[in-house]
Every structure is written in C-alpha cells, then in structure tokens.
C-alpha cells in the first residue's frame, strides 16, 4: 500500500517543478532540466547533480518511474537512454500539492484583499 499523497507534502520547489514537468508525459533528464527552466521563467535552473538527486529520491518514493527512452522525438545521439514518467501516486501528490498551494494563495488573497478595503 502506498502512503497517502498528503504525507509527501509540502514539496520543495525543484521537486514540484520536476513532477510538473513530467505531468504531460515521459521525459529524459535533459528535457526535464529545460522544462523546469521554462516553467519557472528561468528562476529555477537545476544542476545535473540536483536533478538526479531529486530523481533518485522520487524513484525511491515511488512518485516517478524510470523507463527506456525509446520515443522517436526523444532519441538521438548523445541523448540519455533512460526517461522518467509520473506514477499514479506521483500524479496524486502533484495534484495534492497544487491544491495546497492554491488554498494558500486563496487565503493570502482574501486576507490581503481585506487589508486593502
């Protein structure tokens, strides 16, 4: 049995971006790095050691899975031969974290709105 998604929260910023990057589908390490950079508007630039440290932890936790990188658009000379996909529990953790962040933002907006009025 997997632990509840809430037990993985809160996620660190790089972890959140990595999971988010994998939400649409399978990606190899380089594609994840680039996507995280894009998603964060260049604010989060992961080093290879940080990326693979996080991927290793996420694999241990079962939030992602490691699969062969065999899709045509992902394969090519010099590209990593392994790719990563979000597991079912990983997707639920990502959704739970999104909900958590959303409620944080909502309550902050509410309070700040009160102060302005």
């Amino acid at each position, binding site marked *: 049995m997997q632990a509840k*998604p809430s037990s993985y929260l809160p996620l660190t910023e790089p972890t959140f971006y990595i999971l988010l990057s994998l939400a649409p589908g399978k990606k190899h390490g380089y594609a994840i790095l680039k996507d995280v950079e894009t998603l964060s508007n260049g604010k989060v630039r992961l080093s290879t050691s*940080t990326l693979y440290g996080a991927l*290793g932890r996420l694999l241990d936790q079962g939030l992602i899975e490691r699969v062969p990188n065999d899709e045509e658009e992902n394969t090519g000379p010099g590209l990593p031969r392994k790719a990563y996909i979000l597991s079912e529990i990983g997707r639920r953790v990502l959704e739970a974290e999104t909900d958590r962040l959303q409620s944080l933002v909502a309550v902050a907006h509410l309070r700040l709105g009160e102060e302005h009025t």
Partner: protein
Amino acid sequence: MKRSVQILAQMYTRLLSLYPQQYRAEYGEELQAVFSLLVNEAAQRGRFSVIRLGWREMRDMPGAVIREHRRERRKRKMETRTSILSTFEPGSWREWLAAMTLFLLLALGSLLSYLHITLPLWLNWGLFLVPLLMFALGLIKGLPRWFLPYTGVIGVPLSWALTTRGTIMGINTRGGVVGSLLRWTDRQFFALLRPSASDPWIVRAVYGAGELWLVLLGIAAFTVLIVAACRPLRPFYLRLRDDWTLLSFGLYGAMVMAVLMAFDDYPHPHKQLYIFVASLILVAGAWVYLRSAHLWQRALALFGGITLSMAVAATGRAILYANPLLWPPAARGYTWQSEALCTVFLWGWLVAVVMTPALLALLPRPDKSLQAG
C-alpha cells in the same frame, strides 16, 4: 572554446567518480549525457554561459556527493538490518525455516516425548533456548517477518505474569515492586471482570479460556503503540500498517503455548501425539501464510492453522478424558464433553485475538477509495 568544453566535460567525468559506485552505475551515463548536452548548448551561447554552468555544477556537486553517499549507506543499512525481504526472500526456504523452527521444535519435542526418548539435559536446555536465540537474532536483524511468531510466544509468559495470581515456575509474580503493580492491576481491572465461584460453570469456563489471550492482545496493541511512537522503529510500524496480518502472524506464534496449555493438566504421554499433529498443522498454516500473496489468503492460512490445530486438541482432550484406562472415572471432575467444549472456547478466543489485526488488514483502505475517486 571547443577545447575548454572538452576539458570541462572531462573534468565532470572525473568528478563523477566521487559518487558512490552503485549510484555511478545507475546514473553515471545519464549524468554525462545531460551534462554534455548542457555544456554544448552553453558553448553556443558564449563563454559566460559556460562559466555559469560550470559554477552551478561545482557549487551543487559536493552537497550531492555527500547526500548520495549517505543515502547509499542508509540503503545498505536497511538491506542488512531492517529489510526482511532482502535477507530472506518472501517464501524462500531460509525464511520458512527461520519461522518454522518455533513450530518444528514443538513437533520435535512432542514426538521425542511420545517415543520416550530422553535427551541429555544440556540438549534439552539448548532446544529451550532456541526460541529465545531466534528472538534475539530477529531483534538484531531488524524485526524480519520470520521473527514475528517468536514475539507471540514470548508474549505469553508476559500475559501470564499479568494474569496469574501466584507463582510461575517457582517465581513469585506478586513480590517486589512489579508484584505490587500487578496486584494493583489485578484489583483495579481483572477482579472486576473475573467471574466468581458462584457464577455458572459456562461463564467461568468462557472467561477462564480467554483472559490470558485477551491480555496478550492488549500487550500486542501496547507494543504497536510503542513501535509507532519510537522513531527508529517507525519503518516496522509502517510495514505493520501496510499489512496488519503481520501482527496476526506474530500472535500466531502464541499458538505453540496454546496447544501446550490445552493439554496442561493431562498427565498421559498419549497427549504428545495430539500435540505433535497440532504442531504440524501450525507449521502448515505458517507455511501457507509465508507463501501467500494476497491478504485474504494470509488471513485464511492463520485461521485454518488455529482452527485445525484446536480441533485436534479438542478431539484429543475428549478421547483421552473419556478413556477409562487413561483417566479413571473416579478421578474425573468434569466430562469429556466439557473438556472438548473448553477447547472450543479456547479456539474462539484465539481466533478473536489472532485474527483481529488480520481483519483490520481486510478492511477497505481509505487510499483505495481515493484511487477510485
């Protein structure tokens, strides 16, 4: 520029050797591939981009190397200390043998006794110490699955000490500070529950058959609470929470004592034959448990082991008690039916106590409903 890119890539490859060997084998190639792509891309943007990339990598690498070494060490520790499944594969003969030793010792002891084979004193003590040694070994090994039945068998004397108002094997359980505490518990708790001599026989028989086992369940629940609260034991608690039949399997070990106690007042050596058969049934139950993949199969294996072994005990008690050659009618205080019925009561209590955690395991999980949602 091309030359500096090559030097950087070579440096990176050399630095990868700082990572643990297993990590390198797992991710080394990927790390190199990703870094090569990054460095080539940075080179196209200019020297400054390459320097920035190099700086980012050098800044993060020392911390990552330390983290990976620590993670590797933790993993190794888990494998050697807390993971049963890696030391003995589920259902492997080694795991089977380690768990079965407890039940096989009972079978061996009863068979030798039935055949009137007397072992030297040192060997007798040696066999007696085996469960204790296995218990200690299990603690050192990080509470593996095979170790659990030994907790059950160790729990029975504890439960006995709590419920017996006198001596156990010549040891006064009501002396000293512990004795005072036990006397207090007795007055505050058991005295309120215990039926009096004026109560009907059946009430006394039902209660008498269950007190020890109910307290054992209480001890098990208390132990689980301690395990849950104690941080180093947390992985074991999480395993229990994943599969509550493990706790039932632990309590199943107490069946060894239950079978022995069923024939406690029976002086005739013929009882050993029934104990032998009952212990083989317990072996079979535990074997099926260890080999089963599904929770319901595991629960059923334990239920089957308890039920069949107690059926043998009830039959044995009835036959031995009814036999005028073995038990002269003048010396009987009860009937063979009441003897068998007492064993049925014992069975009822054992099923209730051992199967309670297993029933928890069979309850629908909130996580599953979440998945369905």
